[in-house]
């Protein structure tokens, strides 16, 4: 019996089917836990799913590349999902027009804070240059951040990890930070989370309200744009 089980495992572990299925199963399990906990931000589903997957892959000795051969089909959807953000954005058109100046000012302030404070803190604490560059675009969504890092000589795959970690931290802390500052308007709360914590923050905002989600999605798209433009400029200024 044992050799047969082993044969099945050897076969399955080389097809993309397993990586894809396990990603969907583990995520839905994590989301179920999150839902049962009344969407407590501390039980972020991305964090739970990533921790479970890392544990499973380590226990079975599966290399990340083998897993990603299957999981890439999920990863690929980040592109069309980014394009799809145009729709909630358009749905908020009236509010968007009214708030154009505050939105653009907040975007610029937030985008600069995200880059400068991340690099500044890590530099003060002695991080290497590769880590600094990989860290800089941490607040923008994965495909954008990876593209930026690649052009600037960082490690795109490390950036992807730091981006996801940032998203989780933002989704977990936003409620407490914004409550502490007594920020109540859902458009402001959503926009702040979207600038700081891209798609994971946006997913969290959509769970709170449609309006927060739309502004988070808007912020995520705009910050992708702003960081992609600001980053080469900052590198040129500070080398």
């Amino acid at each position, binding site marked *: 019996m044992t050799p047969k089980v082993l044969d099945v495992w050897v076969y399955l572990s080389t097809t993309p089917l397993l990586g894809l299925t396990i990603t969907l199963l583990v*995520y839905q399990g994590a989301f179920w836990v999150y839902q049962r906990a009344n969407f407590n931000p501390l039980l972020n589903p*991305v964090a739970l*799913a*990533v921790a479970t*997957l890392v544990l499973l*892959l380590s226990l079975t000795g599966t290399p*990340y590349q083998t897993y*990603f051969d299957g*999981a*890439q089909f999920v990863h690929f*959807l980040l*592109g*069309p999902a*980014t*394009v*799809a953000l*145009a*729709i*909630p954005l358009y*749905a908020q058109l009236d509010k968007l027009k009214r708030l154009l*100046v*505050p939105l653009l000012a907040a*975007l610029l*302030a*937030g985008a600069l804070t995200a880059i400068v*404070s*991340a*690099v500044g*803190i*890590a530099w*003060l*604490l002695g*991080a290497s240059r590769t*880590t600094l560059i990989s860290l800089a675009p941490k*607040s923008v969504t994965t495909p*954008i951040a990876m593209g930026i890092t690649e052009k600037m000589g960082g*490690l795109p*795959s490390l950036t*992807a*990890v*730091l981006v*996801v*970690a*940032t998203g989780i931290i933002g*989704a977990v*802390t936003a409620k407490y*930070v*914004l409550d502490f500052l007594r920020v109540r*308007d859902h458009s*402001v709360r959503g926009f*702040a989370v979207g600038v*700081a914590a891209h*798609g994971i923050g946006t*997913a*969290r905002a*959509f769970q709170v309200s449609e309006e927060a989600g739309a502004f988070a999605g808007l*912020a995520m798209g705009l910050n992708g*744009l702003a960081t*992609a433009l600001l*980053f080469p400029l900052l590198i040129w200024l500070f080398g």
Partner: protein
Amino acid sequence: MLGAITLLLVYQLVGEVIALVFKLPVPGPVIGMLLLFLTLLARGSIGEGLRNTANGLLSHLSLLFVPAGTGVMVHLARVADEWVPIVAALIGSTVLTIAVTALVMRALMSRRERT
């Protein structure tokens, strides 16, 4: 649904081509998003199919980050070596960014309301 998915992919593709041809520092999907937004502005409505597909895709947005996040296992050594600056930078910068963005936006909004 098939039409809407195709539409999203076509906009992404056009975005990628524009980014490549004009050597823009902005990634293709973001250009695709801008183009789709401009199209919706010109058309004046979203359409049932597109709205449903976009909602479906965006309601599971956080799932899409799981494969990239799992890549942490490849970088465990670097993260372990530099965990103090990395963790401090991620938490400090994220909290600071949320606070600065919210405060700037709120300040400008209430000033506009007052005038």
